[in-house]
């Protein structure tokens, strides 16, 4: 009897111990969760998603980890029902076009073996059947474009690409470099991917220039083109104004500083210079941002030095620059966005140059809009020239590409539309791009 009573008491103690241990675990977790700052958790954190679902917040949205491209295409085209349709200089249409053709490009850009090709081969391919075209401003590394579109290019990773053409009739991918050279490789895109892209792609009727004009054969000539763009005037930026954009805190944070970092004023307070032991950030109220760090260390690092591939390093540097630019443009409350224009590499040093865009159209200035120099993972220097624009109310129709192509000489084989300063305003015009190789 006494043994049974002792056994029951022992069981009760064991159960109590288990319950108390469990309760302690739960209480520790609740205490820890209550101390967390949910706002600082990234949107892709499982804890953040759980918090939003059960405590309140946005739910049911997608998180896209890839496809955050640092450059936006200027033009896209696809053959649908035997006729070529294209979109240009409009990010909404370009985004929709990318969504429709992503699967096609991811297949076309998964491969290797680019070899030099000649123009006649491209002209033949353009006439051979359905084609898809993607053109960027400037020179973008092939590996980066492939990564953004869901593909992976194995060799020629450092090639700087301006235009990609996939010709389904000959199953070839043609690649135009920024210096005008043409390369081609075999590329296989499934019929399903092509048909799906053709079903969803929308654009305006156009055609390839082929060999009819002295421009690149893949130049898009839109039927009855009337690209009418607003004339812009520069507006005042004051990075130090309390109501200007998101304030300086985000910008300082992007460069690895805090709101408590030491600074001093120059030029009657229109320039603030922030300093720490290894770097300097010079901010001009009117929008000029200059950063420099010493060789030994840096406050901004794009990636962890250990065990990183060449491709991943460039992606990380692009991401790092893109986030800083994003913070700067938010701080200046500018109505522009940045698009990668060129990547220059020399040994361990990588220079990224960005173009400024207004509603998908480049705004050209006397100097590059933004330049970032990385030494390995460390950001060595950065210069950003923030600008703000206002439409004047007037509009200007850009010369149609057909007309411009007819007037092209052999040395000017590329065409672009862009804003350029003229009498204190920014006026959209058509420009010829000289072939750097000639």
């Amino acid at each position, binding site marked *: 009897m006494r043994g049974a009573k002792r056994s029951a008491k*022992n069981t009760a*103690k*064991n159960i*109590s*111990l288990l319950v*108390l*241990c469990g*309760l*302690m675990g739960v*209480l*520790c977790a*609740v*205490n820890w969760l*209550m101390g967390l700052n*949910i*706002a600082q958790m*990234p*949107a*892709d954190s499982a804890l953040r998603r759980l918090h939003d679902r059960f405590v*309140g*917040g*946005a*739910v*049911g*949205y*997608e*998180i*896209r*980890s890839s496809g*955050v491209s640092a450059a*936006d295409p200027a033009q896209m085209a696809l053959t649908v029902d035997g006729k070529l349709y294209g979109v240009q200089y*409009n*990010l*909404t*249409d370009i*985004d*929709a076009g990318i*969504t429709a053709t992503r699967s096609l490009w991811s297949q076309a850009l998964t491969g290797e073996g680019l070899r030099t090709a000649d123009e006649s081969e491209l002209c033949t391919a353009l006439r051979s059947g359905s084609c898809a075209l993607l053109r960027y401003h400037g020179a973008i590394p092939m590996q980066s474009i492939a990564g953004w579109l869901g593909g992976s290019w194995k060799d020629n990773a450092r090639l700087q690409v301006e235009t990609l053409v996939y010709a389904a009739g000959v199953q070839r991918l043609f690649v135009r470099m920024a210096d005008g050279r043409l390369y081609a490789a075999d590329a296989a895109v499934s019929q399903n991917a092509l048909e799906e892209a053709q079903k*969803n792609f*929308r654009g*305006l009727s156009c055609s390839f220039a082929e060999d009819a004009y002295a421009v690149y054969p893949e130049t898009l000539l839109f039927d009855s083109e*009337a*690209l*009418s763009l607003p004339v812009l005037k520069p507006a005042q930026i004051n990075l130090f104004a309390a*109501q200007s*954009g*998101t304030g300086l805190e985000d910008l300082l944070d992007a460069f690895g500083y805090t709101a408590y970092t030491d600074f001093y004023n120059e030029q009657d307070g229109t320039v603030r210079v922030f300093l720490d032991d290894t770097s300097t950030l010079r901010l001009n109220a009117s929008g000029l941002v200059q950063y420099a760090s010493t060789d030994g260390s840096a406050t901004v690092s794009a990636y962890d030095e250990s065990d990183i591939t060449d491709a991943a390093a460039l992606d990380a540097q692009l*991401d790092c620059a893109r*986030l800083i630019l*994003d913070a700067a443009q938010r701080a200046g*409350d*500018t*109505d*522009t*966005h940045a698009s990668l224009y060129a990547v220059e590499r020399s040994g361990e040093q990588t220079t990224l140059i960005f173009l400024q*865009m*207004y*509603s*998908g159209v480049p705004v050209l200035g006397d100097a590059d809009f933004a330049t970032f120099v990385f030494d390995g993972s460390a950001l060595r220097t950065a210069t950003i020239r923030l600008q703000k624009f206002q439409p004047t109310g007037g509009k200007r129709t850009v010369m149609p590409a057909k007309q411009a192509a007819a007037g092209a000489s052999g040395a000017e084989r590329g065409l672009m539309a862009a804003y350029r300063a003229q009498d204190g305003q920014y006026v959209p015009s058509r420009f010829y791009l000289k072939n750097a190789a000639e």
Partner: protein
Amino acid sequence: MQWDKVKNILIAILLTINLFLLGNLAVRGWQSHRRTSELEANLRTLVSARGMQLDTAFSFPEDITLPELSLDRSRADEEKIAAAMLGEHAERTEQEDGTVRFESDRGTLEWQADGNVQADYTLTESAPTSASEALEQARRLCSRWGFQAEQASWTAEDTVVTLTGSVAGLPVHNRRLTLDFSAGDGSVSLVGLWSFGTPYTTANGISITCSAADALLQFAAESGETGKIESMTAGYRMQTDSSRRIRLTPTWKIDTETGEYLVDCDKKTIIGEEN
């Protein structure tokens, strides 16, 4: 016998730790409650100093952190709706600015790149004469055309019906469709701002903390209103940015006696009077 004592000691230790943790939680909860009460009292004072009042039924909302979201324009969905409304053979024209117009003998439908939509449709049944009839007919038409909304909410005033819905589980304050049957010529006009598809953010996307106190104070200081503030709701505002992409920006909606106001959570500026 020795184990028995050890278990007793362990139970005592665990009880003490659990009581401490519970106490800690209770103190935090109480402090949070006290802070909220004090904040609400202070806000009532500050808001009344600006000539406004918080309604007695006003419930002070908690701060919320929301990601900035983006939406892709879906021309395929736009075309599906056009086909359902105007028939398969509606004529389609597209302008340089991305505006797409559909036209047939049943009416017209125009989609703009920023999500604005307007349409005129000739009814095949008799026009409604009361709010309830208008509501019923609007539901039928929207369902037939393919306008679907998460947590759809319908309101009718005379023969004008408004459809709103949430995106990502939260209201989008300026995303609504209004169907107006009042023309009297057997047609209905549809105007509004609408979107399709699932919104998205990126892994490095920005989240914004919507502080109710900040928004309320900014509103009281800058709106020039003098009436009662009835409620405030956190949600999104649909807009296109300078790159013509559709964004969902975290925004407070403040309802007053006289109308609705939107306050940007990030910039803390009043966006505009809606009504």
